[in-house]
């Protein structure tokens, strides 16, 4: 199997690290060689955060480069736009339809781009979800990242059972049920 390249992008504090660790755990469970790259330290403080997950027979570099990602999971629209060019031709771009203004926009030094998702759809295979709204329906707006991951899972080759098992092992014990439910919502959601 050719090495699979997954990217998770978002804003520091949105749970990109947890999501990449779920993915990494899944791939190792399936018997692959796995490498993950994470971001810690200052960059995490509300900045643009990107983590990489690669799995396959034999993985060398721990990063995904431009034009190589099979799937990009974006927890925020502007971050989807920033990293979309990392996508392979016919790769899947899964976007949480959610806006967090970066400081240059907040202070009026820059404009938040209009119609990001519509514009990205012209160039890429985009699957968007308002996961934050969906998560509110579940009673916890913070599990939005598992919903986005569920949507992304539609474009990856692991079974629901495999996903559930690794979620059980990775998230805090008290939150296993809600996280599994959130994943299921995303996994069953029809997106376009």
């Amino acid at each position, binding site marked *: 199997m050719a090495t699979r390249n997954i990217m998770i992008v978002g804003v*520091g504090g949105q749970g990109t690290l947890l999501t990449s660790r779920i993915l990494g755990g899944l791939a190792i469970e399936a018997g692959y060689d796995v490498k993950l790259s994470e971001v*810690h330290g*200052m960059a995490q403080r509300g900045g643009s955060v990107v983590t990489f997950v690669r799995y396959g027979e034999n993985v060398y570099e721990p*990063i995904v480069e431009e034009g190589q990602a099979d799937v990009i999971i974006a927890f925020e629209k502007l971050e989807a736009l*920033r990293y979309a060019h990392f996508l392979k031709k016919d790769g899947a771009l899964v976007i949480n339809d959610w806006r967090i203004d970066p400081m240059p926009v907040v*202070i009026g030094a820059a404009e938040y781009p209009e119609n990001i998702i519509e514009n990205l759809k012209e160039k890429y295979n985009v699957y968007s979800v308002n996961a934050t709204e969906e998560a509110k329906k579940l009673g916890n707006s913070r599990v939005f990242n598992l919903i986005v991951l569920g949507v992304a899972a539609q474009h990856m080759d692991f079974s629901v059972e495999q996903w559930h098992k690794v979620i059980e092992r990775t998230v805090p014990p008290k939150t296993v049920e809600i996280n599994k439910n959130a994943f299921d919502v995303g996994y069953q959601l029809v997106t376009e």
Partner: protein
Amino acid sequence: MAKTKKVIMLGNEAIARGAFEAGVKVSAAYPGTPSTEISEYLVQYKDSLYCEWSPNEKVAAEVALGASIAGSRAMACMKHVGFNVAADPAYSISYIGVNGGLVFMVADDPGLYSSQNEQDTRMVARAAKLPVLEPSDSAEAKEYTKLAFEISEKFDRPVVLRITTRLAHSQGIVELCEPCANQDKPYVKNIGKNVMMPNNAKPRHAVIEQKNAELALAANTMDINRVEMADTSIGVITSGIPYQYVKEALPNASVLKLGMVNPLPKELICDFASKVDRLYIIEELDPVIEEQVKAWGIEAVGKELFTVLGEYSANMIKAAILGEKADFAQPAQAPGRPPILCPGCPHRSVYHTLKKLGLHAAGDIGCYTLGAVAPLSVVDTTVCMGSSISSLHGMEKAKGKDFIKNWVAVIGDSTFMHTGVNSLINMVYNNASGTVIIMDNSTTGMTGHQDHAATGKTLMGDAAYAIDIPTLCRAIGVKNVISVNAFDLELLEKTIKEEQQKDEVSVIITKTPCVLLTKGRKPFCVVDTEKCKGCGLCLKPGCPAITKQADGKVMIDDTMCTGCGLCAKLCKSGAIRLVKEG
């Protein structure tokens, strides 16, 4: 030793595991991205080793030195700039050598993810005449850590284990082994070796040159210096993380992978060079391998093609050597998203007040360096740990008391305990008049909440005496020591104004815990859109949870807001209300 289990581990976690398997007895560190997690992972082995947060890297290196002299395997962990702080002991420990194996784990940060410079530890280690091992993934990180202790004891050299951010913070598969049996040695009194005064150090210098020469010779046949012979038209000498990029970019090339980058295996390199048509040297940051290889008269291409800046990648190597440009869509124009202070951060309140008063801040190393970022833009200088206080003092001595009436020094509690206190002693001693604000958030924040000498808890989770910062300041002779809650805007403003007018040193401690220290659902603020006049006052401190809507009124993101109430205090229309749900 039977191999037991395969697991996925962060590079830093693998180093901790390697230290445990090597039988490390003592580890000391000061937190610094990207090295911090090593100590945090070491704690899980606390039944068989001791580990601590030391106040700074110099102390940590000396703690490790003591453990080594006593006869135990010891380690000190730090980031590259921390190794500068530890340079004083490191250069002379190099002359002493070891009793129990001694390793300095130093993490560089090419690409500056969380650092103030991009220095190359291999250069520092060469200057200190210390051997350097460099792993290229988590599995090697564990094995090289163990090997570092073996080399240290075999050649009587302290060894530097050098990693970079990409290794520290990437995960890969590691096979766990059983820890080795007790490695402790008896203490041996040896004044000639362990007392570095001129008459002893002079012969020791000759000894360590000889030891390093022996190590250089042994390097030619070490397994970690590995030739992977393939197509001989292209040969690459590389090490560390760049090895992975080389394998990805040039799967058919011949590769000499160096696991030890100081001293270099001259014979092995000359032999490899003679077998390939064109030799490339691919190393991030400085041309450390390249300059030595070229000095031996070997023809090679290195920094002619590759930058000394930032991180490398497979695409970069393909483009430089094969002329193959990667095929991908044009990146979109997107406004940047620089890191910022978190919603609810007490530093924001302090900076908002400083900005209101039109003051400049001499800054320091921590989250609060972000006070330099718009819209706050209050921090004028940031250099290194502790420098805020001493540089403010230098300004006063250059331009006089009146000049620094518009200035304060700002420093965090952990950084103050690291080296800031020395600088404060200097201010008192040399009759300074400046104002120092210790932004005490009860933790080492930037690196992810580590304890320190003023928090009352050790790395291993034991209760400890919490050094009282106000008492410490008074004890060294500061007469004006005032504690204020960072969110008490009126009192904070009044206090700063008063202390600025005094002709002696003042310390204001804004003691308010880091908002991330408490978990769980927090209260949040909501905007009454009827009352909001869209004046923008609440936007001034630059809280990321507040955004301006198309109609000019503001909206607060309740998933981000932590209910610090700063915006509500600033609002003159009473439009922001705190909801205590949590």
